[in-house]
């Protein structure tokens, strides 16, 4: 077998060796273990799982290590692996109402069935650097509080009882869309849109969500409920005739409640913005919920006036694997195109010069 080898091959090999060396860093410092990353950088792992769209803590930890902590690179690694996996089927919809809750808060009710549960949150920590964490100080264990229920009804169900909030709505089609198996088409149904948002870039969605709060498509949101915990994933087994639980995943769910004046078709009632992501990713779930609501403008008959409402704009640009790939492809050689542009600029400059500084013959003719 003849294989073409040229100079670039050696350069690439050397660059990869250098990368491996820099990744390992100082050899006198022990190498990170995946258990350390998964256990102590858990929120980084959660982000890689949610935007990488693959629920596997070990693989996400490996990706973070391999990417030297570059989150988008880690997300890309996970995605590129995920895409090679066979598709066995689709799970039943998970029941977040039956979630084994670790954190659950509502900004709309002071107290409610199931109560407020802060859980492991940065909220109300004072952001003072803690020198103790520089060492390996003993950390006391913490368990679930006494008498705290593990399950609680969803806040949206409380509002839904008296019709104050719109229903959850039905899926547009019997089998939900799948953005990893079907090319996107605009306008999108909400199922595929939510899929795109769920693995969209946290920073991008955060900025867009923020823009809605600052008046670019204001939707008067209230954080109806944010809950984090584990839910069971069940898969229907045709041979058995019923669904079987195959595992549990940790999810963060956010239900935003938004004002809605009503339209010719719908009475005034609260509307929903929905966010659901893998792991503990509260900021992302909230941003997703605000963006989801903003993009329902068409469905609810609202004027589309701001970027966050523009489904084609948001969904086409929220994927950080696509975005970083295309932005960074500018590193690749473009000298063929550049040569063509060079020639054009040289020609137009020559024309410009001759117009500005007409020779005597031309000047006479003009007179």
């Amino acid at each position, binding site marked *: 077998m003849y294989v073409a080898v040229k100079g670039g091959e050696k350069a690439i090999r050397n660059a990869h060796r250098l990368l491996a060396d820099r990744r390992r860093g100082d050899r006198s410092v022990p190498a990170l273990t995946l258990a350390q990353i998964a256990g102590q950088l858990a929120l980084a792992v959660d982000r890689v799982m949610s935007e990488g769209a693959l629920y596997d803590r070990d693989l996400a930890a490996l990706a973070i290590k391999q990417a030297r902590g570059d989150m988008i690179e880690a997300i890309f690694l996970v995605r*590129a692996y995920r895409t090679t996996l066979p598709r066995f089927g689709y799970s039943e919809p998970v029941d977040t109402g039956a979630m084994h809750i670790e954190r659950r808060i509502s900004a709309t009710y002071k107290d409610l069935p199931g109560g407020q549960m802060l859980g492991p949150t940065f909220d109300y920590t004072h952001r003072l650097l803690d020198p103790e964490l520089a060492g390996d100080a003993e950390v006391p264990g913490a368990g679930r509080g006494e008498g705290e229920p593990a399950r609680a009804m969803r806040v949206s169900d409380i509002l839904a009882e008296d019709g104050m909030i719109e229903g959850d709505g039905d899926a547009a089609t019997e089998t939900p869309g799948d953005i990893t198996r079907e090319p996107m088409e605009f306008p999108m149904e909400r199922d595929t849109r939510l899929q795109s948002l769920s693995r969209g870039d946290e920073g991008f969605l955060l900025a867009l969500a923020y823009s809605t709060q600052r008046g670019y498509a204001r939707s008067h949101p209230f954080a109806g409920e944010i809950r984090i915990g584990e839910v069971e994933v069940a898969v229907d087994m045709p041979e058995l005739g019923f669904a079987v639980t195959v595992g549990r995943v940790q999810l963060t769910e956010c239900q935003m409640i938004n004002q809605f004046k009503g339209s010719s078709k719908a009475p005034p009632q609260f509307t929903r913005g929905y966010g659901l992501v893998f792991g503990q990713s509260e900021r992302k779930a909230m941003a997703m919920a605000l963006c989801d609501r903003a993009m329902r403008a068409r469905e609810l008959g609202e004027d589309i006036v701001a970027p966050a409402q523009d489904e084609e704009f948001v969904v086409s640009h929220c994927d950080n694997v696509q975005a970083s790939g295309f932005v960074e492809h500018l590193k690749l050689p473009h000298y063929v195109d550049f040569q063509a542009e060079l020639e054009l600029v040289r020609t137009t400059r020559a024309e410009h010069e001759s117009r500005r500084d007409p020779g005597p013959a031309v000047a006479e003719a003009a007179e």
Partner: protein
Amino acid sequence: MTMQPTDLATYNFAYLDEQTKRMIRRAILKAIAIPGYQVPFASREMPMPYGWGTGGVQVTASIIGPDDTLKVIDQGADDTTNAVSIRAFFAKVAEVSTTTSTADATIIQTRHRIPEEKLGEGQILVYQVPIPEPLRFLEPRETETRKMHALEDYGLMHVKLYEDIARNGHIATTYAYPVKIEGRYVMDPSPTPKFDNPKMDQSEALQLFGAGREKRIYAVPPYTSVVSLDFEDYPFEVNRFDQPCALCGAEGVYLDEVVLDDRGGRMFVCSDTDHCEKRRAAGHKGTMAGGEIGQ
């Protein structure tokens, strides 16, 4: 099927699973049946970044077989880093023979160039496409541009070309110059210099275009009319170079400008490295053969 064992997983022949390949081949068949029409396909994440040839790689992976011989070029050259990387990828996951010789290749994956040597029947040219929509920079919305293609409404493009002429005296598009396929679809030839456009017309080879990030495949079957858009009084013209290749003396080929020093020294050499090497091997000599960048 050849399976490649790795620590974590096994990958199929040519990386993609057979179901995905079948899906892509269906899109390719549809694209061939409707020349110039952009067929949406469920593009996969690939182990190289979007924008780095994932569309071309998916097309190649779907059509390549163990008996194929693959050539990969970027900017016309076989030895640019990304071409090297993609060629190495297929040598690894598909164990196919690779070549730098245009004539010996059954599949040529390219970015930004069409080889100078005329392609023949049975050869397939796979283009890597960043933005498949020729109307995209005139109308950013996919919903709108799809409608414009459906209605064959290409007025906007003609207005753009007309405005170029009104402003500059000539059409100011030098690469990714729009073409019309079989008198129907306006198509982006990918960012090849317009110098290469005439090679697409009535080509004996099958031309496939893959845009991974934008999830589109389109095709120009062999012996298909490919016409660069122009006006009767401003006909399409290709860029011409004042001098021949400094290494092989070739004329009428696309040249790269190589900066030699910091005093304005320049030389022009073939962008198609295979073409240049073959000519030199056949005894052709340019003015600087054996000089500064001779190998």
